[in-house]
């Protein structure tokens, strides 16, 4: 294990944490049931984390969930921004995932063309 690299991550993140103290977190949920995994949820989650790391966005939590019952729409990704309705994207691939992070999670603009379901107002 390269301890030096871990220390670098720690220092970089700590600086960002101080800047963002008190900010409310956005939550990203990736479906990681058997169906999600078989449909490609793992590289999707890796792409989401990678994009967030590149943009130094450590006020976003990325978690996994089980099967939601819409196996044919997997990989499914939910975006929960504070104070906004939940948006679920379907058939996400790593490329779409990076756009969702850049434009919706960080920019606040829903990518309508990829939406599978949206919570009603």
């Amino acid at each position: 294990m390269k301890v030096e690299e871990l220390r670098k991550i720690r220092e970089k993140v700590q600086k960002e944490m101080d800047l963002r103290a008190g900010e409310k977190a956005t939550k990203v949920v990736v479906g990681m049931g058997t169906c999600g995994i078989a449909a490609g949820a793992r590289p999707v989650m890796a792409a989401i984390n990678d994009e967030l790391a590149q943009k130094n966005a450590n006020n976003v939590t990325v978690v996994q969930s089980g099967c939601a019952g819409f196996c044919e729409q997997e990989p499914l990704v939910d975006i929960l921004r504070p104070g906004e309705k939940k948006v679920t994207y379907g058939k996400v691939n790593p490329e779409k995932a990076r756009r969702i992070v850049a434009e919706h999670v960080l920019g606040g603009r829903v990518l309508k063309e990829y939406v599978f379901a949206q919570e009603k107002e």
Partner: protein
Amino acid sequence: MQELALHILDIVQNSLAAGATRVEIRIQENLKQDLLVIEVQDNGKGIPPMILPQVTDPFLTSRTTRPVGLGLSLLKAAAERCRGSLEVHSTEGRGTTVIARFQLNHFDRAPMGDMGETMGVLVTSNPGVDFYYEHRVDGGKYTLATKEIRKVLAPVGLDDPAVLQFVRQDIQGGLKKIGAATFPKIKEVLR
């Protein structure tokens, strides 16, 4: 599943759903015996003895969204088509161990796949769980323990997005060093 690493990601989801706080993943490649053993051990709530004999039945599941549970049945089928087997041992209140055996160089064995990404995803999305990963190839050994990573990173959590890439690269480099197998080595391919 296209990779054994995806099966492992899937089987560990069972451990997490069972409330495990520690999950140990051990992979052993025995070149002499032409054997690959994958073991996932957790300290979750365990499986009641009454349903233990049926856990590889695809129509038995504890989830409520659909009456189908494919995780263990898919792994069993993958192992059995490579002259292997699947064992599930469990004690209620103590935990469960899943052991899958494969002929290492069997024509139908799926590639190991990206264990780095599998572990990276598990670690960052379950920062409170202690993961231990051990991969042996004959004499060579690679290990990763999230307890150690957590200690160095504190107060930054394991859920920081940069951790996934760190775990992935550490594992990919480590497995290369010990010469871990990716694809089965087939001497003769039938045409």
